[in-house]
């Protein structure tokens, strides 16, 4: 469960403070698939980063899995993030000199779980990347890169996956595929919070929250309109 109360995030600019998030109040239930939709600059990434315990809000509180994450020490927050939150980015953010298995297993290094490489290979098999296990990111297609990033996010069996424009660089087939894998995670009981400026993900969502100028503008609950068909 993720609960945001009166969250404000301001960036200090040359021409004064810029408010990226204005008084956000949000409650996301465990096991929910939430799409945060909005144009570029609306505050989607800032919102995800604050939920991910990576960006301290200017004011307000954020509770994830009943922990007020910004009351934790930096070390506790890093551990919490490693154990509870998986991240998927638009630009994949794979380490270029590591191969696919190593990139996925990188997440296992911090959570202190043994058998990271074995688990990474199993995940890669499930995501159809077994034959790419020892390739470098530069040798992968965009879809394969994103599936690698999903495998990395899934490695520590997180409770929540935060996905920031995960399909922004993908063709329609790969978009459907990636959203499908996120939906699978959701169906297995995980929480997905996905930020996008497109509409493709809405069909998988339990709820769509619209973000405009750092403020939420959402109907209380949007029923899923369409089931996955990938």
């Amino acid at each position, binding site marked *: 469960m993720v609960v945001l109360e009166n969250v404000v995030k301001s960036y200090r600019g040359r021409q004064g403070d810029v408010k990226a998030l204005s008084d956000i109040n949000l409650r996301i239930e465990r096991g929910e698939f939430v799409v945060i939709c909005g144009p570029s600059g609306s505050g989607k990434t800032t919102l995800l980063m604050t939920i991910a315990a*990576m*960006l301290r809000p200017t004011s307000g509180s954020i509770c994830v899995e009943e922990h007020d994450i910004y009351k934790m020490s930096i070390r506790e927050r890093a551990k919490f*993030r*490693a154990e509870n*939150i998986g991240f998927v980015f638009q630009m994949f*953010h794979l380490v270029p000199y590591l191969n696919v298995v190593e990139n996925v297993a990188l997440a296992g290094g*911090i959570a202190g779980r043994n058998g990271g490489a074995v688990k990474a290979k199993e995940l890669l098999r499930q995501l159809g990347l077994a034959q790419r296990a020892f390739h470098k990111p530069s040798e992968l297609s965009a879809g394969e890169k994103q599936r690698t990033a999903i495998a990395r996010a899934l490695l520590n069996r997180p409770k929540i996956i935060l996905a920031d424009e995960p399909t922004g660089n993908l063709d329609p087939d790969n978009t459907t595929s990636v959203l499908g894998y996120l939906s699978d995670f959701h169906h297995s009981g995980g929480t997905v919070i996905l930020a996008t400026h497109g509409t493709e993900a809405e069909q998988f969502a339990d709820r769509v929250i619209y973000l405009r100028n750092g403020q939420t503008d959402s109907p209380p609950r949007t029923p899923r309109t369409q089931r996955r068909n990938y």
Partner: protein
Amino acid sequence: MSKFWMAGFSEHTMPEKYIDIFASQKGISYNHLVATLQAKILWQGVEIILTGLAPERCPPGREKPPMSFEITQGTAYIGYELARRLKLKKGKTIEIRGKTLTVADTLSESGGVDDIRIQCHLRDVQDILNLKGQINEIKAIDCLCFLLTDDPLVILREELAAVLPEAKMIQMKPMAIARAETRQLVRNVFAVIMPIVVVACGAWIGVLAIMNVRDRQQEIGIMRALGYGSGRITLLFLGKAVIIGLLGAAVGFFTGTALALNFGPGIFKVTAKAIKPEYVWLVWSLIAAPVFTAVFSFIPAMIAVTYDPAVTLREE
């Protein structure tokens, strides 16, 4: 002594065993004693100086690696002018008064009496001159590392007067001063150059580490997003610096030693025997270099830790 000064060496001989007396004295500030027999002879129509040198000896408790090259019996080192005039080359066989010798090497031009000198093992020269068991000088090669302001002659005369009052001691001053000046020069140069080199190398390591941190900004962001803490990231960069330091120390030591062993004897002919691997420096390098690289990589590592993953990942 006037004959000595005229000839450049003593024409009188003494028993070779005298060196045992010098070599057995304790508490005297000399090392590297060399029993020497020299004579002017006419050879192949040229007046030459024939010099026989015994292996170096050190007093008890002052054993050091030999400073000069050791001459094996049956070989000869030919001075530049003689080699040029008589067309002698390395490996050629020569005969001096019935004694056959192989040319071990020909020496580079010295601009002095050494250019008409043939250096052989003491035994060979004793045979050639028919002076078995005789020598006419004991050289104490200066390795006392006195400062230019010290006078080794005064110090040694005082020390020897108590135990060997009959010994005549002279200093081959130009050579000794040249060596002392060289040592002083090296010391002065090192005193200035070394701190500059150390700071420059450190700054260079720091710059490379900062460039490395900047290049890996995205990676740092990913690691922070995955939950890596500041300690792990600091360790990543300092660990890399330490590994580079260790590798650099090992590679530097072995490369330097290989170069010194290959080219050193050719450049420093007099002290060729002293050139050998000094493994104690490997140990010191393996300790000092990682500490050095870690110290100069500390600031870049701290910069890496302060990167805001949210900013880094958003910018990519």
